[in-house]
């Protein structure tokens, strides 16, 4: 008696028979029918602001997908190499393997630049949507009992997202990430009593050393994502246990939830919305450049990458001499790549 054959089994189509056989196979081994019964028609209230958390979740999935692609090409190593890729202005320049492989992803791998930009834009959207989601939860009071623990887990996720942002920002080992790391080094050194030693151990010696990129890499692609996924799992579980909050409205009471059931309305909307979020990120990534590391060049502790035009004119009497880039040096030793966007205040 291991089949679910019913008297009308013969009248079912092949597809139906296959589906019921497959469902039976799985249920007899997992008793998943209980779960489907419990949550399959769970009601989700509908309000645009409930999308913000969804955006965060979906952009995180996009980050995981694009990031996995990037790991296949990225070399988390600070070994000095001479760049020999197809970006001519930096040819022959000494840089770390991390920077060189970032340039290779951008200029020699088809779709590599697209994936880098998808990853970066999705990361920005991730943090931004977490921020907005938290504001929504805060201002609607949705953090109150019994949801305090979930609010705290969300807060931890926010911090972890920023940690992911920082570690990812540091990986290409370009001028921007080097200066970012230097600021972090300064902050770590400022920790009372143990700061000097933490910085020393973190960087494997003096700043910047040759270890930090590979160390941040393992945090960025394994440890932090694992913690985020676990915390997200608990976040979702508690959401299901506590049920969603809802706005006041006719027929809405403290004791009910009004909305559409997971199967099929909410699943279609949420699943479709994942594709919309993914699509919009891809659209932005394919049309707007972000973090052009080739403009900044490799890290040099005495250079700064940002050129802010604050005064508007270069002949202003208070215009400071631009020491950001070595392009204007009197001896004429212009480092290619860094002089491309030489501007003066």
């Amino acid at each position, binding site marked *: 008696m291991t089949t679910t054959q019913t008297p009308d089994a013969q009248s079912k189509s092949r597809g139906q028979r296959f589906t019921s056989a497959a469902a039976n196979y799985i249920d007899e081994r997992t008793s998943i029918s209980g779960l489907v019964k419990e949550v399959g028609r769970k009601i989700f209230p509908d309000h645009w602001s409930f999308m913000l958390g969804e955006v965060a979740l979906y952009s995180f999935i996009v980050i995981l997908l694009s990031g996995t692609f990037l790991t296949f090409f990225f070399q988390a190593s600070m070994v000095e190499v001479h760049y020999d890729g197809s970006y001519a202005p930096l040819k022959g320049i000494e840089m770390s393997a991390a920077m060189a492989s970032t340039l290779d992803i951008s200029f020699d791998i088809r779709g590599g630049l697209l994936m880098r930009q998808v990853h970066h834009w999705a990361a920005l959207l991730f943090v931004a949507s977490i921020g907005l989601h938290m504001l929504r939860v805060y201002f609607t009071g949705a953090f109150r009992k019994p949801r305090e623990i979930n609010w705290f887990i969300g807060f931890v996720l926010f911090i972890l997202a920023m940690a992911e942002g920082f570690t990812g920002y540091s990986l290409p080992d370009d001028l921007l990430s080097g200066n970012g790391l230097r600021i972090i080094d300064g902050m770590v050194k400022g920790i009372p009593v143990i700061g000097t030693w933490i910085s020393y151990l973190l960087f494997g010696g003096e700043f910047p050393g040759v270890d930090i990129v590979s160390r941040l890499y393992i945090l960025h692609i394994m440890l932090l994502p694992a913690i985020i996924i676990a915390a997200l799992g608990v976040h979702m579980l508690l959401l299901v246990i506590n049920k969603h909050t809802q706005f006041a409205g*006719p027929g809405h009471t403290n004791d009910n939830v009004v909305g559409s059931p997971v199967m099929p309305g909410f699943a279609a909307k949420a699943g*479709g919305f994942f594709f919309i979020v993914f699509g919009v990120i891809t659209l932005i990534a394919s049309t707007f450049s972000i973090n052009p590391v080739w403009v900044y060049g490799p890290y040099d502790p005495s250079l700064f990458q940002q050129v802010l035009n604050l005064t508007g004119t270069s002949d202003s009497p208070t215009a400071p001499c631009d020491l950001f880039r070595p392009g204007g040096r009197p001896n004429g030793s212009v480092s290619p790549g860094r002089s491309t966007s030489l501007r003066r205040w």
Partner: protein
Amino acid sequence: MADDHGDTAGSKAAGKDVAQHSAPAYDAGTAVVASEEVPNPGFPPYRPRVTDLDPKVDKQQERRVSALFFVSIIGSVLAVAAYIVFPIIPGDMDSVRNNTLFLGLGITLGLLGIGIGAVHWSKALMEGHDLVEQRHSTRGSEETRAKALEVFTLGNKESGFGRRTMLRNTLIGALVVTPLPAIVLFRDLAPADDPVKLLKHTFWEPGMRLTRDPSGTPIKASDLTLGSAFQVIPDGINDSEHRIEEKAKAAVLLVRLKPEELEISEGRENWSYDGIVAYSKICTHVGCPVALYEQQTHHLLCPCHQSQFDIKREAAVIFGPAKRPLPQLPISVDSEGYLIATSDFMEPIGPSFWERQL
């Protein structure tokens, strides 16, 4: 029990059975309770959509969703085509842009087609009635809680965890101590040196020539015209084994002012040469390169957090989060007229750290 309030039944059997839970009583706490509550008007009547009323529109929307899914298929195929049609030609930046753009647009179409199609399907064609589900208190029922308590009581009784205090306390002690080896294991993340000693010294040595960054060519005092600024590194640093680490500490800015413009404090009289002064380029706030020099005001500006230092007053902080002036490098000229350092920095450069003595 899930219950729809429209005019159709059909979902009554499904959904979570929560009928046994009585509605939880809420304590108003400190909230203001309105004395004249508006009675719950109940659910508004379901307003049928056009697709509910007109089978023709229903069919039309169905075709529209299907068309969106078809657009998605085309987009994904176009993305594959773009991957082949727009290859990256080494050295041709336009090809990188085209590859990124058209591949990206194809994927975008593939994704948005599915996304917009599915959402439209849900909104226009799927059963549109709101359903209702009862909330139940997150708190477990009294019966469940009593059983859980019994589990713990039994566990405690059978193990003797609460009774055998010595056993329990030594176990806690052992658990606290076990992670110690894991912490110690991390010592070799960095070499055996003392970081404090390393932080207090830079590459500069007495008699070492000041050279241009990054070429390493020495600088004569006469190379500096009034008002000019040079980025400087110590002679030989480019051949150093730890070039970047050394440069991160030894980078210097060289500026020439009129000698009478400089306010020189006691003990620093021979640290400058004919109005030429050298200051560490590493910000004392968090270590960014102090990369901007204002020729007219003689101010140095750190672009990271806008700390400003006044060169005329020995790089004193005049604005921003930095707390200490930039350390000055004592300089002079050698017999050939080249600028040299007469010593290392007299204090550690860069941001503060715990062991730094002020």
